[in-house]
């Protein structure tokens, strides 16, 4: 199943978004069977930020993430089989079935961990940047967060330290306007721009369309270069939108918590559809290519599900392991 990835960077971006979308949709389809028994937050609609960011990072650049981490993990190169095995609670899972969907790790690709408590990886990411600095390495620590996380005090403490020590930290904020069902309008003042607040803390900031994968990739590339050249930590805010419910496999716009016109407008700006349109006249891109990718990816996903499903459970007698090193 080792399919040839496109050499063309633009095509790669689109293929990777499609892959993540198809993985998340497959999880959503299979979840109701009750085999993946853990709280699961899907990234459908938000793939461009993950993919564009990862494209601008090296494998050796460490990354940390949140409860909604599948896309970040996969885009960074995290192993798909081990992701699904983790959701199935199997020993072959990326965290040996101990952590589930909200606790992903793949050290082979620098994915240092995602955690379930909002904001809890922010200082960890800054600590990775501190480690990089102390060891005089060239890497950049990438810290994924949501709009909700910047409401936690630990965000300010972490960002401040990153600035005061001028650490190689890159904050990637996926602003999807919601923390669970609570809109930004109830949580932050009208007219507030998150990146403006963060700029006042001393980080270099910018805001971009998070559904334009090419724009994301370009912005992150510039930021990473600036950090590698010794610049201040950077905070990039990307506006985007989640297509499915906050936690779980279903759409939930029947609940009416998001304005219908917002939902429609954002879905019309689906990152994958937009990218495909942008590439219409791009050499090497065609409807057939997409179809070929789809069938390659579907086969990969089928194989990964079969792997996860048939993989053995962790041995219950090992339940108390790993508490201490």
């Amino acid at each position, binding site marked *: 199943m080792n399919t040839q990835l496109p050499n063309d960077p633009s095509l790669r971006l689109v293929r990777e978004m499609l892959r993540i979308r198809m993985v998340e949709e497959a999880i959503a389809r299979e979840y109701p069977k*009750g085999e993946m*028994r*853990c*709280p*699961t937050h899907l990234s459908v609609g938000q793939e461009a930020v993950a993919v564009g960011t990862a494209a601008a990072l090296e494998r050796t650049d460490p990354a940390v993430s949140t409860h909604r981490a599948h896309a970040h993990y996969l885009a960074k190169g995290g192993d798909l089989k081990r992701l699904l095995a983790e959701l199935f*609670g*199997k020993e072959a*899972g990326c*965290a040996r*079935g*101990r*952590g*589930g*969907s*909200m*606790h992903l790790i793949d050290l082979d690709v620098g994915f240092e961990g995602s*955690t*379930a*408590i*909002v*904001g809890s990886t922010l200082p960890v990411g800054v600590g990775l940047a501190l480690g990089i600095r102390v060891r005089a390495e060239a890497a950049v620590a990438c810290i994924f967060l949501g709009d*909700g*996380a910047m*409401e*936690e*005090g*630990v965000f300010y403490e972490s960002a401040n330290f990153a600035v005061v020590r001028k650490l190689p930290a890159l904050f990637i904020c996926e602003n999807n306007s919601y*923390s*669970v*069902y*609570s809109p930004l309008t*109830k*949580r*932050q003042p009208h007219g507030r721009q998150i990146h403006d607040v963060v700029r006042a803390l001393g980080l270099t900031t910018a805001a971009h369309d998070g559904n334009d994968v090419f724009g994301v990739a370009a912005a992150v590339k510039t930021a990473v270069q600036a950090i590698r050249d010794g610049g201040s930590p950077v905070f990039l805010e990307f506006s985007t939108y989640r297509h499915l419910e906050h*936690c*779980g496999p279903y759409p*939930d716009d029947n*609940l*009416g*918590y998001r304005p219908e016109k917002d939902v429609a407008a954002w879905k019309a700006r689906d990152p994958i559809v937009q990218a495909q349109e942008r590439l219409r006249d791009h050499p090497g891109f065609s409807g057939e290519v997409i179809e070929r990718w789809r069938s390659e990816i579907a086969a990969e996903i089928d194989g990964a599900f079969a792997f996860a499903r048939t993989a053995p*459970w*962790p041995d*219950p007698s090992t*339940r*108390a392991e790993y*508490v201490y090193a």
Partner: protein
Amino acid sequence: MRDVPTTQMKVIEAIRNGLDVAMDLDPHLICYGLGIDDPKRIFGSTVGLAEKFGNGRVFDVPTSEAAMTGIAVGAALRGVRSVTVHQRLDFFFLAMDQLINNVAKWHFMFGGQRSVPIVIRLILGRGWGQGPTHSQSVHSWFAHIPGLKVVMPTNAADAKGLLLSAIFDPNPVLFLEHRWLHEAVSDVPSGDYRVPLGQARIVSEGGDVTIVAMSFLVPEAIRAAGLLARHGVGCNIIDLRTIRPLDWDTVSAGILKTGRLLALDSGLPICSVASEIVAFASERHFQSLKSAPRRLTMPDHPEPTSFGLTRGLHPSAESIADTVCEMLGLPHRFAPDPNAGPHDVPGAWFKGPF
């Protein structure tokens, strides 16, 4: 109870009803928490409150547990009581400084001039892969802190009655709700019904062993008593209801009654509430004990996520009954009910994911 009309309610409805009654009684009482007026209404516990009492008194908040806890302190100083809520206790860990250094100590460290009458609702997760950071029950930490009161209701009437007492108590109260008990139904008195804090409830009055339990382990103990009754063993079950202040009189009487103590705890074993109860029994009632007091708690490691690792993780009716038989020197051992559903859900009503 006098002639108070009662209604059958789920725990979650009883909490809603208690909040409603309290907000009518105290026109300054506020309720806030992330998602309090969202479509899910904190598992249904705040349905209709925002509509009835308005956004000035029932409001959504930023994802800011630490600040929102300290803000409750300040509001209380200004004469505004509050009930805040966190959909998992684990999220509330961000507020530990406010809880331990301010909430618990304000009254003490300023020489008793100001009190902090606030209630913090914390929902305890279990099952469906809640895993290491969505399933923790650290009632023993909270019970460790002088100045806090800690309540863990197990049925609908107590949920309402304890909540109302908590709200009108002059002290801060942590109100720990178990997600698996939310749908438990019982008769709930209407109106301003209060259950005093610090009073345990005797659930059954058997004569062979005293089982002290809290939260979700109370129904497990009741099931265990059913298993044991078939073998002629009678259980004296005490539902603590309040962890701090703990009703030592009732615990004492229970120990003296049967001479055998099994302390259950839905938390970790070391420095647990069960440890404290066993220590109490050993110090106070050593001469009256017919066998060594026992504890049954969660194992001493974090909760894993995998379905394959959580079977048998929690104390269950069977493990409770087994332990009682060991204490009594009886040979019986109890296998899990083969017809029970998956071990990681409380019943068909729970569809996941949290």
